[in-house]
Each structure stands twice: as structure tokens, then as C-alpha cells.
């Protein structure tokens, strides 16, 4: 078993208990998604105030909701097209709010360089989701590139807990640029190979 696979299995144990509790309590998955974004707004506020450890703790709680909504939907037979749409829209709000928190913080500190790094990282994080959504309206699957949402969230937490947010922002920025490029390349190749007009 790989190192990241082992960590995934360890984290899955408490999450399993929470998922079971939500299914038994008949909590609707869309409600979990919405609670998740509200908690993420609180995390963004903590980031904006420079309280990184507090933000990290709140992010852990918020992302439990984020992670379990899909599993609860599956297990309580509440999977719906609207649920999938709602989840992906709300996820964008969560993503953007964290970046806005950091942009506010760096603007307060009069650090225009990191305002730009955060803004660019936010742009490419959103484009990562957009390129996949748009590509999958043209081709079957567009799941390439390293920096997807779970990686971004874990990196945010690592940056918050260990006070290394600047390094984390650089990693998110560079790898999100690669991810967007990967998705454009894959879509171009797939459309070219199927004989679709690409020019």
C-alpha cells in the first residue's frame, strides 16, 4: 500500500462513523453541502485576520461536510442531478472564499506581490474546474492534472497549520497552471483524434 493510500484509509475510519450517523439521522446531502460552505466562510474570515491555526481547524470541520455529502447521497439513495450541480457550484464558493480571505490579509499587510499570487492561484483554481466541466461537454472524460480540489484543500490546511501559506500558494499556482494546460492538451488531442474540427 502507498503512503497516501494509508493516510486515506486512516482518515476514512472516523468519516465512516459520521456518514453512518448522517444517513441514520436522514440529513439531506444538499443541507450538508450548504453547511460546509457556511463553515468555509468562517475559515476564510479567520484567514483574513491572519489566524491561520483557527482557520485550519475550521477548514477541517468544513471539509468533513464537503467530503461526506456525496457519500451520504449515495447511501441514502438521494443522488440527483441537481445535487451534483449544487455540490459543484457550492464548492466554487468555498474555494473562492478561502482565496479572498488570503487576498484580504495580504492587502491589509500591504503585500501586493502576494495579493497577485493569491489572485492568480484563485484564477487557475477556478479554471481547473471550468476546463474539466467544459471539456466533458465535448469529450467523455477529462481527468488529468495533479492539482484538483482535494489536493488544494489539503495544501491549504498544511499551510494554515504549519504557517507556510506563501509556499502553499506558489505550489497551488504552479500546479494549477499545469493542470489547466493538461486539460486543454487532452481535449485538443481527443477532438483531433475523433476528427472534430479543432481550428
Amino acid at each position, binding site marked *: 500500500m502507498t*503512503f*497516501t493510500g494509508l493516510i486515506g484509509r486512516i482518515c476514512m475510519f472516523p468519516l465512516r462513523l459520521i456518514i453512518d450517523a448522517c444517513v441514520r439521522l436522514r440529513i439531506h446531502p444538499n443541507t450538508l453541502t450548504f453547511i460546509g460552505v457556511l463553515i468555509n466562510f468562517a475559515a476564510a474570515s479567520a484567514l483574513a485576520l491572519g489566524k491561520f491555526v483557527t482557520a485550519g481547524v475550521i477548514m477541517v470541520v468544513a471539509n468533513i461536510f464537503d467530503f461526506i455529502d456525496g457519500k451520504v447521497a449515495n447511501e441514502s439513495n438521494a443522488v440527483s442531478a441537481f445535487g451534483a450541480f449544487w455540490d459543484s457550484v457550492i464548492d466554487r464558493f468555498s474555494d473562492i472564499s478561502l482565496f479572498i480571505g488570503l487576498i484580504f490579509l495580504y492587502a491589509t499587510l500591504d503585500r501586493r506581490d*502576494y495579493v497577485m499570487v493569491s489572485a492568480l492561484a484563485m484564477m487557475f483554481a477556478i479554471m481547473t474546474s471550468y476546463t474539466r466541466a467544459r471539456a466533458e461537454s465535448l469529450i467523455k472524460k477529462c481527468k488529468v492534472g*495533479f492539482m484538483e480540489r482535494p489536493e488544494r484543500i489539503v495544501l491549504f490546511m*498544511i*499551510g494554515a497549520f504549519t504557517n*507556510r501559506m*506563501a*509556499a502553499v500558494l*506558489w505550489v497551488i499556482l504552479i500546479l494549477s497552471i499545469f493542470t489547466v494546460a493538461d486539460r486543454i492538451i487532452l481535449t485538443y488531442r481527443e477532438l483531433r483524434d475523433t476528427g472534430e474540427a479543432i481550428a
Partner: protein
Amino acid sequence: MSKTPLPLRVLWNAFYWTYERASWQYDVMVIAILAFVWLTPPEWLKDPMASGGGPIGWLIDALK
């Protein structure tokens, strides 16, 4: 691509990422990212919130 030299192939595969989570390639990437985040001195990145040299800075100081 099979005739491309190994270092170039490694670089291309790191850039054009197609590996699944929890694969050994994913582990290597995660370790590289964590090393960058934790070992790079915050001063080098002009980190607005963190200060000091970090582990690499301490090592350089110790070797001086």
C-alpha cells in the same frame, strides 16, 4: 515518446499528470511538494506571515 531520454520523460509525466491518487507516482509528488513547503526558507519566498530560515536556514546557519 518511448525514444525520449528518461529525464525528459519523467519531466513530461510530472507536467502531463495522468496518474491516479494513491499510486507510487502520487506519493513521490506529494513528498516533493511537502519538501518544498516545509524546507524552503520563508525568507526566500518573502513570506508575509512566516519568518526565519526554516530547516534549510537552520542547517546553513549550523554549517557556518
